[in-house]
């Protein structure tokens, strides 16, 4: 029996990936005359017709500025945009829409908190804890806040396999710890962190917790109340919604106590040269005309995911990850980077002495799109003693035959570099 047939698909019986693929027009594209095999979902996901149509319908039927509406069109646009917010609230089980702020994406969400919470609450000598496997966007905003406030960034270590060292994290916590900023799923490795336990420990020290959920949102059902996190950030474009829209969840009391992020229209209650007062949540943090079509598209993407069931999607993707992991055993030179027990569908690897960039170029010629490089996570590359990896990441529309194509491509790389 070959590895290919050694494990049976565990994906749920009703999950019809062939039908789902019809929803994603881009999957019919040819790359170098070969069918596109899109395995770069951790960078961004493709968009289904309902999302594309929602954006188009906004421009063809609803386009008007929001929250200004004497006229009916503006009211319709406002309702559609706020409908997206309500869906996002349900998606993460936040208590109120007031706690759900539209931002450009995870990066802006983290910057908002680092700016409005970090820079105003931190004092010299206070500490912020991040993990060793954070994306740059959950490191740099905190470094910037440290520079301004004199706070200190501490780093919770990981194991060689990419698991957060919880004991070491516990030892880092102390009365000076004010913020714990942690990824939910590490983008370069796929490791899932135990956010609930991380949060309980942080809260016991009086620190607040921000979670970078960019990679978790497409794979793990999120319940911010159950996790009890203080802030949770995710991007629309990784959950099949447009680029340029994302969500910052924050507990109401914390958001209320924070100063606004940017000044401008929509975020004010009244403006005069004597005194300006700010709008209520969530608008206080939403200056200027937002990406209205994006908010509506986000709502459509969440509907799409809900219809399939995030659990079904996760089990389908996990099957692909297991399958890839199994096939990789036949390739002695292939080393999986990131072997945490709890892992989302990220398959990061190195291949002997072949540089990931060369792997990426050769796979591209087979129509296979993967990410190569340091994945905006240079510190974790340094920690693991590597410069870069090749990363295949699976989405809801990928198939086992695409995993087969990936491995055929990897064998071609070996042949070219033999």
């Amino acid at each position: 029996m070959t590895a290919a047939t050694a494990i049976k698909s565990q994906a749920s019986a009703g999950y019809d990936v062939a039908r789902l693929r019809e929803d994603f027009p881009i999957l019919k594209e040819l790359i170098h005359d070969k069918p596109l095999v899109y395995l770069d979902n951790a960078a961004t996901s493709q968009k289904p017709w309902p999302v594309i149509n929602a954006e188009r319908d906004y421009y063809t039927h609803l386009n008007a500025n929001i929250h200004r509406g004497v006229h009916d069109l503006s009211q319709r646009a406002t309702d559609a945009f706020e409908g997206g917010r309500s869906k996002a609230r349900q998606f993460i089980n936040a208590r109120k829409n007031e706690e759900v702020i539209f931002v450009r994406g995870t990066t802006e969400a983290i910057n908002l908190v680092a700016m409005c919470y970090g820079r105003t609450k931190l004092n010299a000598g206070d500490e912020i804890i991040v993990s060793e496997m954070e994306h740059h966007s959950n490191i740099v905003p905190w470094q910037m806040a440290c520079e301004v406030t004199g706070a200190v960034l501490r780093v919770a270590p990981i194991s060689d396999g990419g698991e957060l060292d919880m004991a070491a994290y516990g030892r880092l916590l102390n009365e000076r710890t004010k913020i714990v900023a942690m990824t939910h799923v590490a983008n370069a490795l796929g490791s899932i962190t135990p956010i609930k336990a991380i949060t309980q420990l942080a809260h016991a020290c009086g620190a607040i917790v921000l979670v970078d959920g960019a990679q978790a949102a497409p794979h793990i059902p999120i319940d911010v109340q159950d996790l009890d996190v203080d802030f949770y950030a995710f991007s629309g474009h990784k959950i099949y919604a447009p680029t340029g829209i994302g969500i910052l969840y924050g507990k109401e009391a914390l958001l209320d106590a924070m100063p606004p992020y940017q000044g401008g229209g929509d975020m004010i209650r009244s403006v005069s040269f004597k005194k300006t007062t700010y709008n209520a949540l969530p608008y206080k943090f939403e200056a200027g005309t937002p990406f209205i079509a994006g908010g509506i598209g986000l709502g459509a993407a969440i509907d799409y995911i809900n219809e399939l069931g995030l659990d079904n999607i996760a089990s389908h993707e996990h099957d692909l990850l297991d399958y890839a992991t199994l096939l990789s055993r036949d390739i002695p030179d292939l080393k999986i980077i990131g072997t945490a027990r709890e892992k989302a569908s990220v398959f990061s690897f190195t291949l002997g002495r072949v540089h990931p960039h060369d792997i990426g170029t050769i796979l591209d010629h087979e129509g296979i799109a993967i990410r190569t490089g340091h994945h905006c996570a240079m510190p974790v590359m340094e920690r693991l003693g590597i410069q870069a990896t090749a990363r295949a990441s699976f989405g809801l529309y990928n198939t086992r035959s695409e995993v087969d194509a990936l491995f055929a491509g990897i064998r071609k790389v070996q042949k070219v570099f033999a």
Partner: protein
Amino acid sequence: MSDLSDLYQEVIFDHNKRPRNFGKLFEPNRLAKGFNPLCGDRITLYLVVENGVLKDISFEGQGCAISTASASLLTEILKGKTEAEADAMFKDFHAMVTTDNVEPSEALGKLEVLSGVREFPARVKCATLAWHTLQAALKNRQDSVSTE
């Protein structure tokens, strides 16, 4: 359509596997570090320049096949050349890997094997990293140069 074999020529595999002039020089009088933030490739060039002539040159670093081969070929071809010749070669090389329909300058010699990079825009920086680093070394800039 671009062809993989245009990019990965035998000479490139050869220089990737057995890079020439690899390692530190004993007493370099010029040194520069190059970095490609896109992929994390790093290179250090060591030079001995006397009376405007590149007497000796070597490199160290980690990178993909294209950047390693390009650095190796650079050290090979520039040994014994003047700074002015090296500068002219940089310009010719840059034109070769970035401009369509340009016949590579004859002075480039063996470096012509890298002309296929032109068809792979994502890889141009791999090929030019060593050359940008050389520019910095000749100007004796101590800060790390970046391809970005």
